[in-house]
């Protein structure tokens, strides 16, 4: 336990929230390379699955897959009323969130790392050395990136996906944390990656992180 506390005084964590197609994941990866610390995005799912004995796809469901198809398809109930409680299967998702947050907390207390998404900023809110960032980008840039990353065929499909994913991420974050997704007061730094480009944004954040944690 003492060792852990010492760790937490020298270690630091950077939590990144991001819009779909903002380059947030890439920025996080580059930043981790430059600072020579660990990077966790989807890797968290693998760890959570290992820890709990559950399959990885179980964890992907709440934030990646549509939770509306089943109910919507069968009963034609798209309204929030019947959908909300049942299709999200709250109690079950609550357990999945608990398992993931245990993993995040363990890693965050063990070493310096960068987390992308999954409410890591809320989960690690008691961490003495944590920086919380949010990355957005201009819509055009996001659409372009999403088309390449997801191998989509049209702009419309990309815009559609962006809308849906942002909504889902906001829903997940606002539900599980006590803060608001994408709102300036929820983070220490919000930055539009279109302004400086990916590399430039990484440079900027690197300086910010180094100054805060007094790294050279």
């Amino acid at each position, binding site marked *: 336990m003492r060792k*852990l506390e010492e760790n937490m005084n020298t270690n630091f964590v950077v939590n990144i929230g991001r819009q779909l197609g903002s380059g947030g994941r890439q920025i996080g990866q580059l930043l981790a390379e430059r600072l020579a610390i660990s990077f966790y995005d989807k890797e968290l799912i693998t760890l959570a699955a*290992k*820890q*709990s*004995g*559950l*399959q990885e796809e*179980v964890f992907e*469901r709440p934030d990646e897959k549509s939770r509306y198809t*089943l*109910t*919507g*398809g*069968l*009963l034609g109930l798209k309204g*929030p*009323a*019947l959908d*909300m*409680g*049942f*299709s999200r*299967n*709250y*109690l*079950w998702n*609550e*357990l999945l*969130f*608990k*398992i993931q*947050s245990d993993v995040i907390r*363990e890693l965050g207390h*063990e070493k310096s790392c960068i987390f992308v998404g999954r409410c890591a900023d*809320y*989960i690690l*809110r008691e961490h003495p050395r944590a920086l919380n960032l949010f990355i957005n980008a201009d819509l055009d840039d996001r659409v372009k990136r999403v088309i390449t990353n997801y191998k989509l065929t049209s702009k419309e499909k990309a815009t559609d996906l962006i809308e849906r994913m942002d909504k889902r991420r906001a829903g997940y974050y*606002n*539900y*599980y944390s*006590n803060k608001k997704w994408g709102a300036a007061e929820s983070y220490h730094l919000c930055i539009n990656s279109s302004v400086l480009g990916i590399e430039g944004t990484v440079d900027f954040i690197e300086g910010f992180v180094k100054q805060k944690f007094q790294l050279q």
Partner: protein
Amino acid sequence: MKFTSNPTELGQEKVGKLLLRYALPSIIAMTASSIYHITDSIFIGHGVGALALSGLAITFPLMNLAAAFGSLVGAGAATLLSIRLGQKDYDSANTILGNALTLNVLIGLSFSVLSFIFLDPILYFFGASGVTLPYARDFMEIILLGNVITHIYFGLNAMLRSSGRPEKSMFATVATMVINLILNPLFIFGFQWGIKGSAWATVISQTVMLVWQLKFFSNKSGFIYLQKKTLKLQKKIVTDALSIGMSPFLMNAVSCLIVIVINQGLLRTGGDLAVGAYGIVNRIAYLFVMVVLGLNQGMQPIAGYNFGARLYKRVNEVLKITTILATGVTTFGFLFANLFPEAFASMFTNDKELIDLSVNGLRIVFLSYPIIGFQMVTANFFQSIGMVGKAIFMSLSRQLLFLLPCLLIFPRIWGIDGVWYSMPASDLISSIVAAILLVQHFRQFKHKEQEEENVTKEYREQIELQPNAKEG
């Protein structure tokens, strides 16, 4: 779905043992509340009279509706609370507790005021006649006076459960039952308060346990306790809680609607006493239904976890064991209702006509009970493994989609028996639908089961590789 320790035990421990451990607390709580209602009816039936039982039956839908509004706040707030407690976020948890209390007071009060103003028209609509209305009104007036207390009591009990003190919540449930059991005969036979006495017994027993709950929640050494500053409503908490509570609310509202249609149908075809007979049949049927619901709650985490871990053999095992137990319970009900219906009915009343009506109702309503356990477990099974659409469809099919048309058509052809037969008919159709959906499900999963052996091996290795995962 609570996991007290490492969730991996759900993938390793013997299925039967797990089911017993997870289901037993739910079964006890569910049975206690069912016995509560049964004893109420028994005292009213013997102490006040046969027509008073009809008056009581007319209040069921209104009581259901009150409970629906309670679950609108309670279910949502309890879920939010356990998320925050899981993150050791005690500040947010306390705010949720305070907000839930305020919401309960607001909704409870509004419900009372509105129901009070329109009490007579509401009761007439719910199946009252000039003869039974006074009983229903006498009972309801007192219940509505205490409605805010009822709301807070149930709300705080849900909070107790989700704050990791299920034993406290169970104690409160059982204690209310016992106090009610003592006060009911005292007020009805001792003080001759009639049906009002039973209502007072309910309100007082809940008040006593509410005081006990408040004492528990004002202990500042606990993790969460009531604070003045948390009472102010926060928009985010209110909308989150209400949107989670919406589906349990709607399910309860549906059951309220159905009871109204049943009451109206019985009043039209069989008169006031037929409504009272439904009161008796309903109380007894619920006792068995509640045990199955308790089993279902125990099955959920076990089926859910093993499905997520792809341990399909264990998923099938828990489904099989739960179905067998549930069918056993409901078949037991079927046998009793058909072998000794007079014994059941005369528990509640001495009135010959009411006994005859109830015996007829019991015989018919319980006809489908040997198969209904299967239907209920299957619906819950689909919910456990995340196929929620199917689960909602199946719950609604038995309680609304097939039942409502039957209730509207059958009585016109067969009179009072038509009302009774609607219930087993709807049970039968929805059980057939359940069987079809289940067979379909297993066909789809057959090929996946062949992967099972590899996955089981993989799973064992995973678990063994990280024996100290929970430490550190």
